[in-house]
């Protein structure tokens, strides 16, 4: 048995994930389950709570300097909300933070979401193991890019 892959960067800091709910969406079952699974897997998890604007979420991500932003949207407003989130992240020079999305997402919307820059879309039924692994990889990738600080300078 190999030990599970590490959820800490090379400097020993835990990967930090922001789990976010935006807009009026009150469906929090999935977000809480995922937040907990990530935490139990060793991530530092910050959960925003409900009814945040995309702009607030972007600010929180920047202020807390997270490695991954995980958004949960089930209310069908994902195209609108994600567009605003990605715009604000760009404005803040934070579009190097990988963003993933889970929830009620019709498959036809996956394309446009990826075009916006969303790195992964998790449909209902995705296993926690898969989520943990993909989020971990994105965090790892981002940490290794951090050395040069290219994005902040750009």
């Amino acid at each position, binding site marked *: 048995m190999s030990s599970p892959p590490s959820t800490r960067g090379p400097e020993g800091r835990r990967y930090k994930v922001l789990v976010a709910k935006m*807009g*009026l*969406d*009150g*469906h*929090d*079952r999935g*977000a*809480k*389950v995922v*937040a*907990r*699974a990530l935490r139990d897997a060793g991530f530092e998890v910050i*959960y*925003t*709570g*409900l*009814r945040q*604007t995309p702009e607030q979420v972007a600010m929180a991500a920047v202020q807390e300097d997270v490695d991954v932003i995980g958004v949960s949207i089930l*209310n*069908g*407003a994902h*195209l*609108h*909300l994600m567009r605003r989130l990605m715009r604000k992240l760009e404005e803040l020079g934070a579009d190097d933070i990988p963003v993933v999305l889970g929830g*009620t997402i*019709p*498959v*036809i919307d996956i394309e446009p979401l990826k075009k916006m820059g969303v790195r992964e879309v998790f*449909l*209902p*039924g995705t*296993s*926690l*193991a898969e989520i943990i692994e993909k989020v971990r990889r994105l965090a790892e990738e981002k940490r290794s890019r951090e050395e040069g600080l290219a994005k902040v300078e750009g």
Partner: protein
Amino acid sequence: MKRPGDYDSLWVVIGGCDWRCKVAVALFDERELERIAKAYKEWEEKVVPEWLKRMPERMEEFTTLSGIPLKRVYTPLDLKDWDYMEKLGFPGDYPFTRGIHATMYRAKLWTMRMFSGYGGPEETNRRLKFLIEHGETGLSLAFDEPTLVGIDPDDPMAEGHVGIEGVNVASLRDMEIIFEGINLGEVTTNMTINPPAPVLLSYYVAVAEKQGVPYHKIGGTTQNDPLKEFIAQKTYVFPPEAAVKIAMDLVEWSVKNLPKWNPISISGYHIREAGATAVQELAFTLADGIEYVRQLIARGMDVDEFAPRLSFFFDAHINFFEEIAKFRAARRMWAKIMKDWFGAKKKRSMWLRFHTQTAGVSLVPQEPWNNIVRTAIEALAAVLGGTQSLHTNSFDEPFRVPSEFAAKIALRTQQIIAYETGVADVVDPLGGSYFIEWLTDEIEERAWRIIERIESMGGMLEAVKKGYPQREIAESAYRFQKELEEGKRFIVGVNIFRSDDIEEIRKVPLLEFDQEEIEERQKRRVKEVRASRNQERWRRALDNLRRAAERGENIMPYVLEAAKAYATIGEIMGVLKEVYGVYVEPPEY
């Protein structure tokens, strides 16, 4: 006051007990039981091991979704001291385990009530008419999120949300359009609305008045269940105390003015869908009900005046027998609570009348057509459990609000159960099954324990403020997810017979509508309404509402007047928010 939780096993020692409790009568004869016990022992020791050797069982332990361990088989031994009259009685009789009516579906089938609404009032008006045309027997409105939290479509928080998850209603004008061509004296309408329930009920009553329908003919339900907002549905607005106060205002006003209205639908559905087990759903829902009854009594109302108007709403999940047992236990428990805790006299006060919805959360995008089958099984459980009203989910549930095509299949599912299967021809057909009766008792017992815990915290309002049910539910939701992960629970197409066929998902014809156009239309209309109303009457109505709220009066008459003066939902809720404050959820997980 004695509490039903206090009895030890079946020897009922409840105060105010009638002849039934004086002598507990076991169903089975002592000697007969001994004979069965002997045979059972032999079977267990000789026959079963043989079989196990040849054919090991699929799992080490079988449990219901609530985690209740199940035996291989149930026999009279599991109902040893079981008293038929005390546990079941007859349909229409206390404790109503077998049903609230003597004749049940032989006389009247359950109401087929499909939760519907999307876009603007025009789209929803068309959908309602479509469903009525296809045999739906009651209406049920789904509102969009801006409406659910009581803001206008041009509020910045509503941007991008209008009309997606239900119909947008911003003023009386929208409600008029929804019911164009539908006589409110002839239909009953359920409205899934909570903090703004006084506003929506007022719009509805105002439309009825305009149609010339007298108050005593207005029928339907406002969900108006504030506690489960904090627990599960998360469309809360006001802090818990104020939320309960406002909801009780509606109940009190409705009981006095709208004799056919169900002012509250005490909802386990959302609790369950948020992650609760069947036992938790049952316990938390009844505990909510208990809190409301206390609140209403504290207002000086007589139990028998309001109790007949209380209604309930449960989930029908996929674990078939557990669901049926849950419904039966619910009826028995509520009857005891009303009779023994609160001294209700009227039978109707003891009735647990309930609407059921099949479990949305059991439906998945993978191989979406299978959802039709799941829904059918769940609907069957609801019928065998004796529901008064039923919504069946559409197979496109994991994607978007239902298309006409999918909604029709869901409705047809109910009609097939009602008219083809024959399950509606005998009352409580599973009554007397050793297993079902044992499971009903077991669920009841476990639910009482949770209710006792809540009582010790000072009731559900206090428990909710402490976050107790919220945490328990998050815990259960996580446990379930882990069990899926570990292969202890299965969802076909998801973690067994896994399907990664995204093309199949693509084939699902989804409901299409131009959301942006609808949002613009709703914004335009609310602006028109604001510009064209009688400003004087409107201002006075809102001022009066504010003053009434500040004085702590029942707000309903003032909300009704504001509604008639074409005050928007955002304006009315805005006044109430200023007086009562708003709730911020502590984000625990």
